[in-house]
């Protein structure tokens, strides 16, 4: 089947198998390799891209479903063509050490871009929940969460500062709290 998909502002077209995944279209047909595939079950989020502005896991979208739509990958963000991480999110990931092996990073960055666009009032808890669909095995998320808050214009240390100012115990519910086994 023939598809026409705008990728990072450029028109692309190809004759694809109906079962081809968008992730494979981006990687193998268009040749953009930043988008990674880390699992078979849409669990890891390494393949997250924006499809007409919405974050999707490109391993759960068929290429034909993206026909006549617009896809943005990490290669399409500000400065990427020149090799400079100048988009607020990529710049913050760099400054805050929000990546180690880098495999989850393109998907994590695109999920963060979408999260920031959709919520003007992010805090740590919202960022953690907003990134729930993207797994990282290296960073423990600590610096990823910081990077997203910085990119959103929020002070990543705000909650700790507030607690310090109020003298409230650091174990008070609300901040820095993870629920395991949920």
């Amino acid at each position, binding site marked *: 089947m023939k598809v026409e998909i705008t990728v990072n502002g450029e028109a692309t077209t190809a004759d694809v198998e109906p079962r081809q995944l968008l992730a494979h279209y981006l990687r193998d047909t268009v040749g953009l390799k930043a988008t990674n595939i*880390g699992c078979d079950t849409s669990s890891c989020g390494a393949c997250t891209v924006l499809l007409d502005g919405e974050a999707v896991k490109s391993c759960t979208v068929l290429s034909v479903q993206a026909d006549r739509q617009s896809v943005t990958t990490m290669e399409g963000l500000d400065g990427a063509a020149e090799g400079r991480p100048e988009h607020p999110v990529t710049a913050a*990931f760099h400054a805050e050490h929000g990546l180690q092996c880098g495999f989850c990073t393109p998907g994590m960055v695109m999920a963060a871009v979408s999260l920031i666009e959709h919520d003007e009032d992010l805090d740590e808890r919202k960022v953690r929940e907003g990134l729930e669909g993207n*797994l990282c095995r290296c960073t*423990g998320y600590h610096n990823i969460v910081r990077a997203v808050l910085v990119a959103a214009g929020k002070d990543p240390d705000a909650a700790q500062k507030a607690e310090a100012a109020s003298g409230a115990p650091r174990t008070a519910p609300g901040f820095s709290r993870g629920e*395991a*086994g949920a």
Partner: protein
Amino acid sequence: MSILGTRVVRTEDPVFLTRGATYTDDLIDERLTGALHLTLVRSPLAHAEITSIDTSAALESPGVVAVVTGADLDIAPALLFPGANKAMTRPFLATDRVRFVGEPVAAVLTEEFYQGEDAAELVDVEYEPLQAVIDPLAAARDEVLLFDEAGTNTAAAYGYDTEPAADFFDDCEVVVTQDLVNQRLAAAPLETRAASAFWEGDRVTIYLSNQNAQGGRDEIAGWLGMDKENVRVVLPDVGGGFGAKIGSDPEFALVAWLARRQGRPVRWNESRSENMTGMVQGRAQRQTVTIGGTRDGRVTHYRLDVTQDLGAYPRLGTFLPMFTRMMAPGTYDIEHVESRARAVVTNTTSVAAYRGAGRPEATAAIERAMDLFAAEIGKDPAEVRKLNVVAPDKFPFKTKGGVEYDSGEYAKAIDLALTEAGYEQLRAEQRARRERGDVRQLGVGVSSYVEITGGGAFAEDASVEVHADGSVTVLTGTSPHGQGHATAWAMLASDQLGVPIEKITVKHGDTDLVPRGGGTMGSRSLQTGGVAVHQASAELIDLAKQRAADLLEASVEDLELDPSNAAITVRGVPSAKSVTLAELAAQEPLKVDTTWDGKKPTFPFGAHVCVVEVDTESGKVTVERIVAVDDAGPVLNPLLCDGQRHGGIAQGIAQALLEEVLFDEEGQPLTGTFADYGIPSAAELPSFDLVEMTTPTPINPMGYKGIGEAGTIGSTPATQSAVIDALSHLGITHIDMPLTPLRVWEAIHAASEAST
């Protein structure tokens, strides 16, 4: 001011954050053009005889170029760990028998990726099922044998030839014993295994996702019966390893062999579900701890008994219990320590290294034992630890595990962690909640740990070359998979040479560029490879001074390097001539190759405090806080160091609370995808509180120890301990990991049944 110790952002990142890193499956090497895609047909049964393999239907499938079975191979089955029972070899493709779900049985080569998935379905393999043995304690009884010719399932045993003395604990006022499960984990790097290979005459180049190019080259050459000079291994960017990418996989050699047979390049990139059964897994120990001492809190006796589950074919897992025995006494000065271990095969995925590799298992055991001992005598677990840790004036300390701890301040680490956590207030809050009968109970866990880094492989090469344009190339035998070596090694060279890091290129992971090296594992890189770069840079300055002496008409002793412009100048004579390293390099090559012989491993240490809330109605655990004191000596780059600590802490909490690889009784994996295997997301973890402490090692001139695995080793027992602590007033003294809501709820339920 020295660049060392400063927060330098990574030089690797701009590429990673724009076009993305280049992993093995991303490679666009023209010599891989037209590569065939390899799809492996894997066993659906854990233990079975293969009665027939019919490839005819698969051969008819579109795009299929070849279907290869074990009968076609001319490479003999290999023993994947040299120290294991020699009869326990693994074929590259199974021919007569399969021993775990996921074992490769046939190889399908197709023009395109999707065609391989179709054709692999059509390979018809008939099996005659055999009884599977999954539990390592059952396997040790040898009732079902995996390798008939071995006559036993025990691949290796350490100290298991005699029975432990019955009177060992007779002098103790208090003795506590407990069976423990240190459950099997999947390393689960986000990038699965991948390899691609092409031949040029008799020489093969293999791109791998791996932690050690040189070791991989040697293993693959051995398996293929080739001279290692004819095998080139290149590691491009690697998407995480965590120990599971130490050592080569039989699949890698198969990719190279198939490329030779077909006369075409071959690519292989496994799926996640293949990875969850095919890639080596970690931990997987059953332990029995027995601890004894005095009523006033002094621990005098400790015994550890380990049964290591190796999975189907002995691999690096065979060695893990050696590390566990070595580190058995942990941070404690215990007079009588004994341990023994055996490593047995089962019909499950093979076991090898996973972050910490044998040391988290040792720490989990001794820390659990300390808690049980403290509970038995009714003392505070933090106090009992402080009473028993090795005193600072006893270093270097020869342990009963048979190693020498280099330096440490164990009690200070515990104190720092307790203070930062507000331990006394936490205990007060805990008492208040218990008195109120709150549904959500508070738990506090304390761990004290010491680990061995750079253990086993000490020496590492480095080369530093200054070019005529003033740029510098550093070659290192370590190779990163996310740790940031390019930045760290550039900082080390920059600090010595006065060349800015932007002008320094660090190369690694290519056996043609760096023929010798030990790779990145066991947190060895900085203390071996990094120190080698430091040494090479110093030697390069010495060489430059010798070359400059004539030019500057001064004796070598009077020369020094001016770090502001990377020039050799005459000491104390500002007006004298000078010559830059670049100018010297323009005259003749300015390059140094060196080897740092670390001689000994180092022993980083620390203490963690974990604070949890446990919902006593649902069993749900919420991690409120984790405070980590991790002392690995001086810090080269706090950004990178903290990053390693964060990742390690997360994986440690994950073991304590969430992760476990499970098989059913017939050996079918129950956690074969990320939908079933519980890797924590950002939503399940808190941010981490890191506390600094710096105790240098005398083992190397920089004082560096390793940090890669420390976070994992400290956080697991602290977290497990915290959950049990939250429930101790109910009479609960132990729950095996992972402390999932179900398991915690069951323990609460059982305790309440017992009390009524």
